[in-house]
């Protein structure tokens, strides 16, 4: 015999819906704005990009390259503004929407449940099933609205309505699918990290399936198993297929049914699978100031290492294909030479160009780590350490040493990942050349470290911004200066202007010594400031 629950008053249900909307409205608006803005930008500048017949031909040839096709998807309808826009930004916007959908869903459902807020919420008239459903619906509104706006933006840009609607509907449905997948994971696993991790793994694997399907013709069928593949198979502006969209809708509906069934069968704060309630104590690296600094850097270092390593592994895997493409296309090689990239057709030249970019994430990492040191001070977690008979220099020195060591690890890993990628694909690129190339950018990273330490001493609130100036600010300055043909002295303000293209050329030791000297000077001045100032908390 079952006992029928009394109906939930409409006012209580509406209050929960309002709560759900409040939790995601800000980030939802930003995501929608970014996706529609990027799409509108590409669609409206299509005519300018294609105005030069050589550029149009180059782009078409490049799009046919297997490595580029794997990354961007199968090129279709590149001779139209709509087809070009879908090819150029379709994957990035789909990943942005899918990742946001997952994170927003697990955050507003399982995250709120983990924090104990739903204990109070569910002590009222609203049952778990209804609370989950209302949060699910609130998050799903964002991809649905994004899809509609996307179609509207594409139509307003002058592209055919049928293709715009197919692309908008496909992107929106992909977001809805990942909301449902994340909600299902949030019902199965009793913990936000496990739920988010599982849903993100689904996103990663299905994106990989799409890439495999696009890169290997014999595996084209595999795209029917992936939301990203179904989005590609809908073929906006070329095929305008509806069946893949129906399958996306069916997938979202099936997952939603699973969410409701799972919500009926579990306890609050519980899941369909049991969670470990304890873990063994982790006592490693707790024996001193330096050891503790190393312990704190290990976890973020792992995350950054995975991201940077994967990026440069892909660079290595595509290097042979892209350089071979340039060698086979003399017209494009001439354009590369005109842009100051004479040796782009050589793997060493290609790697030298892309190694320069490495200074930005690694410089950013050092700024974030030194920012974490200030955050510990602000949160009073550093007070106990600072009260010990430990000098200020030793305290910040331990953090600096751990950060510098971690930066060395990241840079070296990027070099090894590139070498692995090129070697796996059968290219000729030595490990020594790869390491010379990545270590060449270290002076720019040291400038970031020095700037961050300087800020810790004299402007601790601004450590993140000041630490990011040499690497990210310097790169932007170089790009803008080269684009507007600024005077040489403006360009030379950027550290990147002084990096030699290693491993193609030898290291510019003078420039490296000057940058390292400046970094040491900034560090010493920062130390002096840190010794003299009070703790912020």
């Amino acid at each position, binding site marked *: 015999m079952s006992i029928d629950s009394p109906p939930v008053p409409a006012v209580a249900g509406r209050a*929960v819906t309002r709560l759900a909307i409040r939790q995601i409205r800000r980030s939802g608006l930003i995501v929608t704005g970014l996706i529609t803005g990027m799409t509108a930008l590409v669609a409206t500048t299509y005519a300018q990009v294609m105005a030069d017949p050589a*550029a149009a031909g180059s*782009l078409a040839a490049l799009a046919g390259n297997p490595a580029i096709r794997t990354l961007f998807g199968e090129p279709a309808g590149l001779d139209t503004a709509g087809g070009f826009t879908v090819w150029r*930004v379709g994957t990035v916007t789909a990943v*942005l929407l899918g990742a946001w959908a997952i994170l927003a869903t697990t955050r507003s459902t399982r995250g709120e449940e983990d924090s104990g*807020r739903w204990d109070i919420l569910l002590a009222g008239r609203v049952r778990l099933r209804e609370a989950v459903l209302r949060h699910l619906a609130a998050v799903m509104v964002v991809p649905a609205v994004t899809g509609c706006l996307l179609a509207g933006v594409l139509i307003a840009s002058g592209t055919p309505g049928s293709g715009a609607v197919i692309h908008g509907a496909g992107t929106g449905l992909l977001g809805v699918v990942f909301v449902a997948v994340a909600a299902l994971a949030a019902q199965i696993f009793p913990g936000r990290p496990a739920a988010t991790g599982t849903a993100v793994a689904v996103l990663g694997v299905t994106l990989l399936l799409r890439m495999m399907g696009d890169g290997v013709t014999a595996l084209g069928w595999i795209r029917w198993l992936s939301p990203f593949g179904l989005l590609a198979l809908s073929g906006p502006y070329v095929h305008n297929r509806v069946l893949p969209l129906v399958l996306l809708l069916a997938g979202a509906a099936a997952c939603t049914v699973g969410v409701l069934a799972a919500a009926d069968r579990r306890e609050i704060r519980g899941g369909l699978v049991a969670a470990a309630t304890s873990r063994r104590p982790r006592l490693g690296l707790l024996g001193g100031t330096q050891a503790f600094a190393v312990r704190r850097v290990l976890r973020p270092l792992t995350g950054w290492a995975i991201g940077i390593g994967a990026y440069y592994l892909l660079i290595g895997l595509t290097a042979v294909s892209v350089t071979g*493409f340039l060698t086979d296309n003399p017209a494009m090689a001439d*354009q590369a030479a005109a842009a100051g990239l004479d040796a782009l057709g050589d793997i060493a030249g290609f790697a030298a160009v*892309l190694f320069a970019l490495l200074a930005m994430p690694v410089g950013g990492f050092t700024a974030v780590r030194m920012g974490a040191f200030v955050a510990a001070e602000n949160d009073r977690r550093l007070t106990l350490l600072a009260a010990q008979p430990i000098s200020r220099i030793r305290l910040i020195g331990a953090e600096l040493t751990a950060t510098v060591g971690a930066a060395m690890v990241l840079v070296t890993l990027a070099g090894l990942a590139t070498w692995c990628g090129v070697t796996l694909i059968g290219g000729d690129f030595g490990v020594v050349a790869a390491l010379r190339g990545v270590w060449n950018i270290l002076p720019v990273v040291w400038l970031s470290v020095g700037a961050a330490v300087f800020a810790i001493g004299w402007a601790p609130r601004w450590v993140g911004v000041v630490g990011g100036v040499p690497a990210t600010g310097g790169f932007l300055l170089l790009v803008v200066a080269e684009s507007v043909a600024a005077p040489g002295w403006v360009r030379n303000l950027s550290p990147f202007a002084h990096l030699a293209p290693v491993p193609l050329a030898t290291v510019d030791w003078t420039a490296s010594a000057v940058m390292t000297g400046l970094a040491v000077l900034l560090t010493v001045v920062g130390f002096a400031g840190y010794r003299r100032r009070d703790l912020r908390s």
Partner: protein
Amino acid sequence: MNRWSFVVVREVIAGIGGVPLAAVVAAALCPAGRPSGRVSGGAPGSLVGKWS
């Protein structure tokens, strides 16, 4: 034209970097370890109070 706007460099950087950048932006919009709102005052009689 600068080096970074050359079509091959630009497309390789964007092709490989676009997807992780999109994931980073999404993660920044929904940071882990933080509640999804903060209480800014409760409304008498309201079930959930005000959230921002």
